[in-house]
C-alpha cells in the first residue's frame, strides 16, 4: 500500500487535528469524544446530527457548518462511532428544540445511532432520526429499508440543515428530511476499487474489462457488472435506471450530483455530467444547479455516484441556501 499517511493507527488523530488547523475558526472537536461541532449553533433551532465512520472525506466532517450539519460524530475508518459519541453530538446540538439524527442506512450506523437516540430521550432530549437510503441497486423498490445509504444522502446533508435553520419545528424537519430522501435516487459505478488504509487490501474485486454497478460506499459488492464502454452509454444507462426507479417525468426539474469516489478525475466527472445532461434533455427533464465533485469518497475508488433529487420551489430554495461547511461546493 502506498498512501500518504504516517501509520494506520494514527490516521484518525492526524486527520482530525489537521482538519481543525484548517477550520478552527468555526469548528471544534468536543473533548473526550469523537465529535466535530460548530463553535456557535444558533439558539432556538432544531439540531442536525450525523454519525458515520471516517474514510469518506470530505464527508461528513466537512459537512458541519451553518445551514448544514451542527455536529458530526465520527467513528474509526469505515466503522460507526459508538453511541456515546453520537449521544455527545446530540447533547451539543440540542438547543431545546430537539435534534434530528440523519442515519445513512448501514447496520452499524443504524444500531449505534438508534441506541444513542434512545439514551438521549431517556435523558430528556427530544431526539428523532431519519434513515437515509437511496441506492437503487441494493434492494428492490418495495424494500426501501434494505437499500443502502450512499452518495445521494448528500442532498439531505446539504438541505435538512438549511431547512432546520429557518426555525421549523422538529416534526417539520423530520418530514422534510424524509421528503428529500423519498425524492432521491442514486446508483454508483466503479472501475477500480479503493484500498483500505488499515489493511492495505483492495476493498472489492473488479475485473479489468468490467465496471461494477451498484457498488456501495464501502466497496460493498453488487450483483451487477457492465463491460467497459464509453461514458455516454454508462451515463445514459444509469440515468435511465434512476428515472425509472424514482419515477421522474418529463417536465421535472432535478438536482443532479455527479460524485467522484476518490480517484476519479474532474475531467471524467465533467464528461460524465455532459452525457447525463444529454440524456435528461432527451427525456424532457431539466437540471437545476448540478453539484460535480468528490464529496463522499471511498478512498481511491475509481468510480462515479450519480444521484438525482426531484425539486420544487421549496427544495430549490434550500439548495440555494449558502453554507460555510468546508466540504460543500461554494
Amino acid at each position, binding site marked *: 500500500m502506498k498512501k500518504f499517511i504516517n501509520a494506520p493507527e494514527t490516521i484518525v488523530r492526524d486527520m482530525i487535528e489537521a482538519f481543525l488547523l484548517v477550520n478552527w475558526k468555526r469548528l471544534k472537536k468536543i473533548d473526550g469524544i469523537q465529535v466535530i461541532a460548530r463553535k456557535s449553533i444558533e439558539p432556538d433551532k432544531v439540531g442536525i446530527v450525523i454519525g458515520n465512520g471516517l474514510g469518506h472525506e470530505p464527508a461528513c466532517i466537512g459537512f458541519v457548518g451553518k445551514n448544514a450539519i451542527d455536529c458530526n460524530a465520527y467513528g474509526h475508518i469505515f466503522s*460507526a462511532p*459508538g*453511541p*456515546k459519541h453520537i449521544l455527545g453530538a446530540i447533547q451539543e446540538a440540542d438547543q431545546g428544540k430537539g435534534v434530528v439524527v440523519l442515519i445513512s442506512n448501514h*447496520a*452499524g450506523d443504524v*444500531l*449505534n445511532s438508534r*441506541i444513542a437516540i434512545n439514551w438521549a430521550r*431517556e435523558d430528556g432530549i427530544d431526539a428523532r432520526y431519519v434513515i437515509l437510503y437511496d441506492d437503487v441497486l441494493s434492494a428492490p423498490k418495495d424494500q426501501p429499508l434494505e437499500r443502502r445509504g450512499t452518495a445521494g444522502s448528500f442532498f439531505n446533508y446539504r438541505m435538512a440543515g438549511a431547512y432546520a435553520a429557518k426555525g421549523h419545528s422538529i416534526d417539520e424537519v423530520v418530514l422534510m428530511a424524509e421528503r428529500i430522501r423519498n425524492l432521491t435516487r442514486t446508483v454508483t459505478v466503479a472501475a477500480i476499487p479503493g484500498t483500505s488504509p488499515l489493511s492495505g487490501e483492495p476493498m472489492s474485486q473488479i475485473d479489468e474489462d468490467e465496471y461494477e454497478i451498484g457498488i456501495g460506499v464501502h466497496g460493498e459488492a453488487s450483483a451487477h457488472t457492465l463491460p467497459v464502454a464509453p461514458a455516454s452509454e454508462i451515463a445514459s444507462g444509469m440515468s435511465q435506471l434512476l428515472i425509472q426507479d424514482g419515477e421522474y417525468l418529463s417536465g421535472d426539474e432535478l438536482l443532479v450530483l455527479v460524485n467522484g469516489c476518490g480517484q476519479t478525475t474532474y475531467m471524467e466527472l465533467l464528461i460524465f455530467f455532459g452525457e447525463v445532461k444529454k440524456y435528461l434533455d432527451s427525456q424532457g427533464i431539466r437540471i437545476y444547479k448540478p453539484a460535480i465533485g468528490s464529496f463522499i469518497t471511498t478512498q481511491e475508488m475509481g468510480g462515479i455516484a450519480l444521484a438525482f433529487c426531484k425539486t420544487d420551489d421549496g427544495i430549490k430554495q434550500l439548495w440555494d441556501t449558502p453554507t460555510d461547511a468546508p466540504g460543500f461546493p461554494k
Partner: protein
Amino acid sequence: MFNNRQVYTLLGEITQMFVDKQQELSRYDAVIGDGDHGFSIARGCQAGFLAVSSLEKESSIQDYFKIYGRELTNEVGGAMRPLFGLLFTEIGKSCANKDWIGLDELAIGLKSALEYISELGGAKVGDKTMVDAITPTVHSLMGSLKAHEDLVNALEKAVKAAKEGVKSTIPLRARMGRSKYLKERSIGYQDAGATSFYYLLNTIWNYAAKENAL
C-alpha cells in the same frame, strides 16, 4: 431481592466471570465472527465496572445498571455487539425509583431488553443469536413470576431454559451478519452471543443462591 450494594457486587462478579471466559467465548465466535467476541465483552464489562466503581457509594440500582450497560455498549464495538449492553440498561429501567431488584424487575427488564434487542438488531428466534437464549429465559421467568416462585428457584429454571436455548443454536445456520459462505460454516457451533447470555444469567443465579436472595 438485592439492594444497591449487592447489585454493585454482582456487577463485579459478572465482570470477573467474563474476564475468565473471554478465551472460550472468542473461540465460539472465531468460526463465523471476527473471533473477538469474548475479548470484546470482557473489555466492555471492565469498562462498565470501572465506571460504576467511580459512582458515589450509595448510587441507585437503576444508575448502576444504566452506567454499566452504557459503558459496555460504548466499549465493545462491532455492528451488533453493542446490543449486549442493553440487557443491563433495560434491567436498570425496570428498577427505576426502587431500592431493590427482585424477580419482577429482572423478568420485566429482560422482557423489555428482548423486545428492544429484537427490534434494533432484527433477529428472530432461530437466527442463531443471543435472542435464542433470551427468549426461553424470559418465558421461564414470566411463568415463575405468575406462579409466585422465589428468585433462586426462578433463576435455576431460567438458567436451564437459557442453556437449552444455547444448545438449540448448534445445528442452526447463522442468518445475521457476515457473508453467506461463512454462514454455512456456522452449522455445528453454538452461538457466542447466546452463550454469553447464558453465562450472565448463570452468574446472577449463583449470586442469588449464595446470598440466599428471595
